[in-house]
């Protein structure tokens, strides 16, 4: 029997993250750990240790089907892990991230006012006013939090949907962070790989 590592418990992290953001949106900034740590590891250590071991979301997608049998355990369609879809999705995600930064700058400059909504699946505006009292922090930071929390929640929902319909870690096949860190790792190797067996 294989030893279960401590990081198998990290499924708790996304649960804590989304709970904290429900009460105070400024906690959304903590999500930057999930954004920067994999990049840091990929750039400086040249591996995907984050994805492979400590990604809380991946651990959640493994944990839920194991305990609640809520995944159909089917093979995901091949287009979902194709280079075109993966890099297309990465580009889309980065564009959305850029738009969040843009909105935050607009609020910072006073050009637009803070919108206290969480946008799910880039479409549905959910009122989320209780999570931020104006004046308790800087509005640009709250705007970034709302945007970033929306992005995190949207991607978690997509991940949960593909977890249920396909296999537990179907999300990982097109996760933008995974695609980005793999690109960095491959770039660092400059095409020098061990021989195929």
């Amino acid at each position: 029997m294989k030893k279960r590592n401590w990081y198998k418990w990290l499924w708790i992290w996304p649960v804590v993250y989304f709970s904290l953001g429900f009460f105070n949106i400024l906690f959304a900034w903590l999500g930057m750990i999930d954004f920067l740590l994999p990049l840091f590891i990929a750039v400086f250590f040249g591996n995907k240790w984050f994805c492979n071991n400590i990604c809380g979301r991946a651990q959640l997608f493994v944990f839920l089907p194991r305990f609640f049998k809520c995944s159909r355990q089917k093979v995901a369609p091949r287009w979902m892990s194709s280079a075109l879809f993966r890099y297309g999705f990465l580009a889309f995600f980065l564009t959305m991230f850029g738009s969040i930064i843009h909105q935050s700058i607009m609020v910072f400059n006073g050009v637009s006012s803070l919108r206290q909504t969480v946008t799910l699946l880039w479409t549905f505006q959910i009122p989320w006013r209780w999570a931020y009292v104006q004046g308790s922090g800087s509005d640009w930071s709250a705007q970034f939090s709302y945007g970033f929390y929306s992005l995190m929640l949207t991607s978690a929902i997509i991940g949960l949907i593909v977890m249920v319909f396909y296999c537990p870690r179907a999300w990982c096949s097109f996760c933008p962070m995974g695609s980005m860190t793999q690109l960095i790792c491959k770039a660092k190797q400059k095409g020098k790989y061990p021989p195929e067996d």
Partner: protein
Amino acid sequence: MPSPRHAQVERERCVSCGSCANECPREAISVWRGCFAIIDKARCIGCGKCARVCPADCISIVKREAAQ
């Protein structure tokens, strides 16, 4: 006596998520420098657990003789 089958990774399609490595009961599969999964064929017993969890469907179980 080596097992009659072993796992094989389609490197171009591997997303290097590490699901396979976490599942392998023999620690015969690992992610090579974040690029793709590689199999230690000497350790692999061809049980197919890695292939079942692979989200990119890039692992197949092949006959040992046929691959050599």
